[in-house]
């Protein structure tokens, strides 16, 4: 969130490595020397393909897993050094939701939400009050006495969110919370997660493999590959200027303004000129700068592919032009654009 001071970290992972011993001596490194902070008040997404180590990473934050080496601090407390009793108290301050919801099938919706309060020793009256308040927040007050199996997937995850927030934790861990849901329900749950962040001020660590989820709710994103964080930045920056191949793949999965290799082949059939792609950001007068650069260099420019939209409420997109004219003119145009800080690259 904008009002939170930069550097005020709620979660700090330092040089964290987690190795799992597999049967006959072979070890798998799930998390490999990760240093990462989650700032108070932000939504930090951790994206990666399955096996990238992101689910292990999030389990290190509430000590469901112990790191092989490195330290994990939550609210300044080294969570790896706590005794069982202190750890349980610390966990009450960290909510968690899961891909498979993990609701207690033997309890009602209200019973599920009240359970962490019961565990924390909260009295009956206060439990009931808080449960009603949370069910109202997630819009399921009328289903309080239903059993989980009577709910749809989206409703189950909303119960999961209400349950995770019962003890008013400052931190919510979401482990692939929308991966078992259809697109419409995913949207509904992501909107709710965003509300949890903005209306309740809860810091969220969102584990996902869907770049669309990152785009919808996250402030920053960490890209994981092979147990390491290979890229970390504001969502807008990663979307408009991804630095690594892994980040570029994820960005492409959620945006459709760059031509695919097949689309590029089709374009070349009709456009013999050189194809260059300009990255659209919220830089003022970008269009004018582009037009002027092409005009001044004396190249013809035809718009052949692209799109402009919003990422986190800021202009973002990509435009692909066919440039005609001699090589020197094209080089002049690209040089002029790069001098003005416009990102432009030639399609291969």
């Amino acid at each position, binding site marked *: 969130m904008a009002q939170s001071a930069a550097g005020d970290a709620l979660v700090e992972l330092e040089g964290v490595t987690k190795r799992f011993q597999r049967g006959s001596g072979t070890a798998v490194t799930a998390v490999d020397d990760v240093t990462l902070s989650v700032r108070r008040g932000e939504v930090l997404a951790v994206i990666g393909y399955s096996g990238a180590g992101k689910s292990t990473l999030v389990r290190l934050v509430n000590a469901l897993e112990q790191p092989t080496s490195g330290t994990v601090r939550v609210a300044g407390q080294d969570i790896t050094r706590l005794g069982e009793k202190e750890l349980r108290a610390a*966990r*009450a301050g960290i909510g968690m939701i*899961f891909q498979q919801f*993990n609701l207690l099938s*033997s*309890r009602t919706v209200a019973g599920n939400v009240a359970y*962490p309060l019961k565990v924390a020793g909260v009295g009956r009256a206060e439990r009931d009050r808080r449960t009603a308040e949370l069910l109202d927040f997630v819009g399921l007050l009328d289903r309080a006495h239903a059993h989980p199996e009577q709910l749809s997937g989206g409703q189950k995850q909303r119960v999961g969110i209400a349950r995770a927030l019962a*003890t008013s934790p400052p931190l919510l*861990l979401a482990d692939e919370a929308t991966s078992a849901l259809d697109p419409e329900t995913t949207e509904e749950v992501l909107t709710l997660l965003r509300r949890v962040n903005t209306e309740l001020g809860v810091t969220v660590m969102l584990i996902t493999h869907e770049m669309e989820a990152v785009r919808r709710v996250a402030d920053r994103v960490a890209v994981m590959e092979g147990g390491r964080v290979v890229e970390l930045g504001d969502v807008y920056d990663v979307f408009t200027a991804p630095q690594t191949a892994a980040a570029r793949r994820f960005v492409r999965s959620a945006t459709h303004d760059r031509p695919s290799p097949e689309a590029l082949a089709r374009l070349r059939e009709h456009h013999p000129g050189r194809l260059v792609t300009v990255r659209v950001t919220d830089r003022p007068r970008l269009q004018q700068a582009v037009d002027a650069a092409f005009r001044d260099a004396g190249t013809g420019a035809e718009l052949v592919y692209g799109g402009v939209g919003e990422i986190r409420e800021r202009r973002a997109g990509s435009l692909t032009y066919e440039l005609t004219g001699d090589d020197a003119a094209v080089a002049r145009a690209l040089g002029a654009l790069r001098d003005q800080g416009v990102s432009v690259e030639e399609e291969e």
Partner: protein
Amino acid sequence: MTVEFFDGFLSSTDVFVRAIGQTLLIVSVAMVVSGAVGLVLGVALYATRPGNLFANRLVFGVIGLLVNVIRPIPFVIFLLAVGPLQRLVVGTTLGTEAVTFAIAIAAGFAVARIVEQSLVGVDPGVVEAARAMGASRAAILFGVVVREGLGPLVLGYTFIFVGIVDMSAQAGLVGGGGLGDYAIQYGSQRYDWGVVYAALVAIVAIVVLGQFLGNRLARAVMRR
């Protein structure tokens, strides 16, 4: 012919009724005792399993070995073998009490395995969620695992009920009382098949009724 067939049964209805009462007594006491013993052993087996809440190789190994050794012993042989223990605890190897004790022990180990299996079937994700909430291990074991596994547990318990009725009938061989005893003493030994079939009908009725109640209870617990 038909009237003659049931002559022996009709002249021994008082014994028949008493046999039903004895069978019900043996079965219900054995159910309660083996249920308690089995629940404790089964929960212990689940909890001490390697990597689980109260992982303990020694306890898990000892209970597991006991269950594995005792459970497959045919009940008739177990009944004879448990004699010294019977004499120690009940004071005799004959009669209803001694037989009930033997059945409770044998069934207890079977219940232990069924309890363990019901609990192992509980979704580990739910256990993880409870851990993430900061629940204590004991709270997770009883408030989450046992509670979530209650439906299959009741079904397994119903399954054991049939076995216990079976054992109670076999106990007739050592004069343990009940319908098995009745079928042997008044039936097969006198070549009176009317008595044997009357005992059979009563046993089947008890089993069917017990299963019906068990299934109803399981459904109520699982709320489906």
